[in-house]
C-alpha cells in the first residue's frame, strides 16, 4: 500500500505512485518532442524535388516523324525516354516468346496502350544500375535480342524492352503516358 508522501518540492504522490510532477514531465517532453518534429520536418522535406523540378515532370512527344523500326530519345525528368515504332516483324517476334522464359514476365500488350502496340515507350534507364542502354540512336548496337543493349554490365533487352540476358532484374520501366491525339503523346 503506497503512502502519501511529500517530496522536497512539496509534491504529493497519489496512491498509485504517480505524482503531479510526473504529468508535467510527460507533458513537457511531449510538447518538446512534437515541437522538434515540427522543426525538423522542413529540414527534411527541403531535400525532396522542388516545384520547378516537378514542373518539368511532363513532356510532349510528336510521333509522326518516327518511321517503323526507328526509335528516338526524348528527355523527361532529366532522364532519357525511348520512343520506338515497332515493325510488324518485331511485334510478331516478341509475341512468339513464351512468358515462362522471361525473367520479368510481361506481354507486349501489357507494356503498350490498346490499339497502339507498335508504340513502345520506355525509360532509357537500365534497371540494373541506371546506365543508358544503346539501341535508340541510329546505328547503335541493339544487342543479341535486337532491342536495347546496356554497355555498362551487358544487360540485353528485346524489342519490347524486356530483360532477356545480363544482370538487370526488371524490364525497362514504362512511364505513365497517354495519347493526347493519335500522333501526340504526353509523358508524365
Amino acid at each position, binding site marked *: 500500500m503506497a503512502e502519501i508522501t511529500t517530496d522536497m518540492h512539496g509534491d504529493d504522490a497519489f496512491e498509485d505512485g504517480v505524482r503531479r510532477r510526473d504529468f508535467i514531465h510527460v507533458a513537457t517532453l511531449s510538447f518538446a518532442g512534437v515541437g522538434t518534429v515540427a522543426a525538423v520536418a522542413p529540414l527534411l522535406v527541403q531535400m525532396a524535388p522542388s516545384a520547378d523540378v516537378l514542373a518539368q515532370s511532363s513532356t510532349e512527344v510528336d510521333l509522326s516523324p518516327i518511321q517503323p523500326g526507328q526509335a528516338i530519345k526524348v528527355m523527361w525528368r532529366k532522364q532519357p525516354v525511348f520512343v520506338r515504332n515497332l515493325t510488324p516483324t518485331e511485334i510478331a517476334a516478341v509475341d512468339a516468346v513464351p512468358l515462362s522464359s522471361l525473367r520479368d514476365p510481361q506481354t507486349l500488350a501489357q507494356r503498350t496502350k490498346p490499339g497502339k502496340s507498335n508504340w513502345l515507350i520506355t525509360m532509357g534507364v537500365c534497371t540494373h544500375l541506371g*546506365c543508358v542502354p544503346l539501341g535508340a540512336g541510329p546505328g547503335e548496337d541493339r544487342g543479341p535480342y535486337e532491342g536495347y543493349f*546496356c554497355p555498362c554490365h551487358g544487360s540485353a533487352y528485346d524489342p519490347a524492352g524486356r530483360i532477356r540476358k545480363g544482370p538487370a532484374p526488371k524490364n525497362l520501366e514504362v512511364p505513365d503516358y497517354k495519347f493526347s491525339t493519335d500522333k501526340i503523346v504526353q509523358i508524365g
Partner: protein
Amino acid sequence: MSFPWAKHYEPKSDFMKWVDSRLPIPRFVYSAVGGGYPVPRNLNYFWNFGFMAGLALMIQIITGIVLAMHYDPSSAGAFLSVEHIMRDVNAGWFLRYAHANGASFFFIIIYLHIFRGLYYGSYKAPREVIWLIGVLIFLLMMATAFMGYALVWGQMSFWGARVITGFFSAIPFVGEPLRVWLLGGYAPDDATVNRFFALHYLLPFAILGVVILHIWALHIPGSSNPTGIEVKEEQDTVPFHPYYTAKDGFTVVLYLLIFAVVVFFLPNIMGDPDNYIAANPMSTPAHIAPEWYFCPFYAILRAFTFNFLWIDAKLWGVIAMFASIILLFFLPWMDASPVRSSGYRPLYKKFFWALVVDVIVLGVIGKLPPNQPFILIGQFAAIYYFAHFLIILPIVSRIEKPLPLPNSITEAVLAKHSSTSTLSGDLAAQPAE
C-alpha cells in the same frame, strides 16, 4: 590519463604562465603531442601513418576551402568552373591537382593505417573505442570523397553519382522515393550538385571533430606497439616530443616528396580520363568504374549476379557492400585471441597476408569490366573477405597457440638489439639517441 611518469607542463616564461593559468591550451598540447605524452620506445614506421593522415586531412581542408572560392555548384556551371580553375585561376591547376591527388593519398595512408591496426591487433581491449571511431572516420571519408568526386560534374562524376545513389533504390518499398529525395530530382541535377557541395564542405570538419575524439581515446591507454604487450614502466617509453615528432617529421618529408612528384608530374595517373568530358545525362560511358579507393567495395557489390532466397541480386550486392565495412565495427569482439601482435601469432599472420592479397584482388576486379573470368574471381574474393572475418578469424583466434611473449617492451628491444649488433657489445648498452 597517460602514465604516472608523464611529465607535467612547466611554463618557461611569465607570459606562458599567464596564459596557462587562464586557458591551459599550452598544457593540453604538451600532454597530447609534446614531452608530456610517453609513447612506447619500440614503435616502427607503421606507427607514422596516423600523423600523416592528419596532415593529409589538413591539406584537403586548406586546398578545398580555396577551391570553393572559385567553384560554381550548378549543373550548368560546375564542369566549366573546374576548367576555369584549371586554366584561368592563378595556381588553380596546382590547387586542384593537390586536392584531387590529396584525396587518393589520404586513402593510401588510411588503408596502411587500417592494415597496421589489423596486423598488430591495435583494435583489441582497451583500444576498442579508438578502432570504432576510426571506422566511423573511414565511413565519413568515403562519403566525403564520393560527393567531392561528383562535384567535378564530368561523365564519371555524373554516372558515378547516378549509380551510387541508385544503390538506395534497391531497398524494398522506400528505395525509389529515398533515391529521389537524396538527389532532389529524378536524376542528378542542380539540386544534387548544390547539396553535395554543401555536404562536401561540411563533412571534413565533422571528420576533424571525430579525429580529435580518436586521438583523445588513444591518449587514455596510450599508443599500442609492435610487440602488443602493455607499457609497464618508464623505461618502456620515450616522450612524444622530440622523439616521435622527429620521426613523424621524417616521413612527412618523404610523403610530401612523393606527393609533389605525383601532383607536378603525374597528376592524372589515378584519375579516369572520361571525367574530362562534361556530364551528359543522355549518354553513359562505355565502362563505369569508381576511383581506385572504392574498388574493393565495388567488386563486392558486383559479386552478386544471381537472385538468392527472396532477395534480388541488386539488393544483395548493396547489403554485401555495406556489410563489408560495418563488419569492421565488430572486429574487436570477433578476434578472441588475447595476443595482439601478429608477430606472436604465426597462424593468424598467414591469414592476415591472405586478406591483404584478397583486398588487392578485389580492388583490381572492381576496376575491370564485368566479364568472365573476372566475375568469378571477384565472387571468390568477396566470399573470402567475409570468410576471413566471420569464420577464419574467430576460429584461428581460439585454436592458435601463440609464441611466447617477451616480459617487457624494453626486454624485447634489447634482445633484438643484442642479436643484431654482433660487432660491439658496447653499442647495445648505449642509447641510440
